[in-house]
């Protein structure tokens, strides 16, 4: 009787899927969980921002130039009398989409190159990895600035610049995951029954790299947002009139003495967003890494 009960318990334990196991482990990371909820809310705000913002992003109020925070203007106004809180809400979509799209492009290219490199090995591996070494030989910010110097300023070019310097990071990580998965028995078995390379990669190698990919994807978004905002701050990114957080912060530099709120609030928005992505990344890493989780 007791044996049957133990067996039943064991069966129930076995039924826990990896997703459930991850979820159980992730929920224990309270700070990261809170960061995840914050980011979810931020995404909602980014989507509905234009409808909930009290003012338009280019709505001028010449009676209230550089006025401090008040009930009328929660985060004050800038040098054109534009409501900073409303502009932050409008800009959420820009900052998030720049961060997400640049990392997505970098991760996509990096993953393809990393899998090809690790799976096929030999000269393909050497060729791809040498190109990645060259890209890594440039400090990230310098590479981004160099690309902007060639392509010219603008948000689209910022996305491209950040994407290009994310490629080698993903390629290296995914290559090492691929190497580990490639040498497992189940992959060797699949290869021995004659599965095509494409099938092995799509059915076995890629799914095995997904957890690593998720962690690095989340962590890179934070740094992508920081670099994109930094480029806008330097005047190399978004147009100064755009409600992009880095550009808004840059506009406020001239009024630091009498209106510090013009720089304070956009900077706070960048800081909290990047902090949330980094905390979420830390939590995901801990929840997805079996060594730490168990």
């Amino acid at each position: 009787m007791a044996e049957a009960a133990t067996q039943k318990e064991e069966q129930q334990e076995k039924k826990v899927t990896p997703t459930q196991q991850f979820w159980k482990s992730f929920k224990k990371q309270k700070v990261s969980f809170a960061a995840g909820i914050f980011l979810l809310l931020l995404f909602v705000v980014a989507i509905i921002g234009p409808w909930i913002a009290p003012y338009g992003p280019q709505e001028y109020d010449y009676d209230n130039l550089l006025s401090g925070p008040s009930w009328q203007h929660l985060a004050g106004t800038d040098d054109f009398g534009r409501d900073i809180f409303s502009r932050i809400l409008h800009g959420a979509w820009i900052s998030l989409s720049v961060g997400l799209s640049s990392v997505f492009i970098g991760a996509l290219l990096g993953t393809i190159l990393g899998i090809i490199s690790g799976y096929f090995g030999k000269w393909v591996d050497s060729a791809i990895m040498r190109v990645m070494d060259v890209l890594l030989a440039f400090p990230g910010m310098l590479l981004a600035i160099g690309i902007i110097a060639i392509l010219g300023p603008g948000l689209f070019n910022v996305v491209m610049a950040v994407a290009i310097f994310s490629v080698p990071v993903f390629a290296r990580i995914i290559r090492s995951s691929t190497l580990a998965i490639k040498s497992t028995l189940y992959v060797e078995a699949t290869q021995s029954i004659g599965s095509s390379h494409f099938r092995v990669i799509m059915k076995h190698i890629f799914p095995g790299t997904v957890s690593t990919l998720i962690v690095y994807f989340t962590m890179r978004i934070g740094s992508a947002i920081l670099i994109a905002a930094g480029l806008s701050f330097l005047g190399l990114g978004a147009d100064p009139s755009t409600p992009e957080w880095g550009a808004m912060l840059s506009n406020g530099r001239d009024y630091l003495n009498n209106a510090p709120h013009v720089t304070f609030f956009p900077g706070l928005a960048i800081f909290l967003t990047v902090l949330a992505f980094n905390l979420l990344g830390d939590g995901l890493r801990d929840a997805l890494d079996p060594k730490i989780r168990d």
Partner: protein
Amino acid sequence: MLKYSVKRILGMIPLLFVISLIAFMFVHLIPGDPARLIAGTDATIEEIENIREKYGLNQPLYQQYFDYMANLFQGDLGQSIVTGRPVLDMLVERFGPTLSLTLASMAWALIFGLLIGVISAVKRNKWPDHLSMFLAVSGVSIPSFWLGLMMIQLFSVQLGWFPTGGIGGFETYILPSFTLGAGVAAIIARFTRSSLMDVLKEDYIRTGRSKGLTEFKVINRHAVRNALIPVVTMSGLQFGFLLSGSIITETIFSWPGLGRLLINSITARDYPVIQSEILLFSLEFLLINLLVDLLYGFLNPKIRYEEGS
């Protein structure tokens, strides 16, 4: 060690070649006629032709590259479009301030990073650990341009303790070096914590405790010293990132260094200066990585023998 060092140095040669090629190609990658770009927007056709002749832009590309390299080895990096001065002179002038700022940032980042990391590891899972690690994540997440401006507002404008920018005595270094070093201090703290926690699990630490050493002695004499090896090498790598981080910090604090020169040159489309700065920053970054690799090989014989053989 010699074999390992030679292998590492030789391994750099192809990278140096590619970097020089990228720096050379920079002007050619920008859409438009390179001679017109170098001559500036107000140049006459005659001036553009002169530039084409002077820089050999009418020659085949491979010939131009050989000439570029030959000039480079003779210290001729061309002339600035804006000031008309030799680019090399401008870079030499700006190198000192950037180096001193980077060193000052690294010094305080090491002191605070190590201190916070050690406290965090020793007080694992207690409030000092949680607080330290929250500070560390914040340090990595805070935009340096925002931190810099907020510090100027508080310490320079409100309290009047430090100047708002420029280079001079000791007091001019405090705000810029704090801004530049904050991220690195955070990374060092996180790394020190994990390295020290690994060391604290070792048998010799248990032996130290069991023979009656005080906790301070165990941590100070045995744990920290061993935990420092990976931290030192990792900090070396961060030095390279500080150099590129100086681009933003120097702009905020009007610091007369290489970073600010780069941004000014991009704004003014001073292509010969941008080209040389890209080359210089990449070389510095590569050189630091090489030094760190050699240092790591020196500190960790396992790496040296595996890679050397």
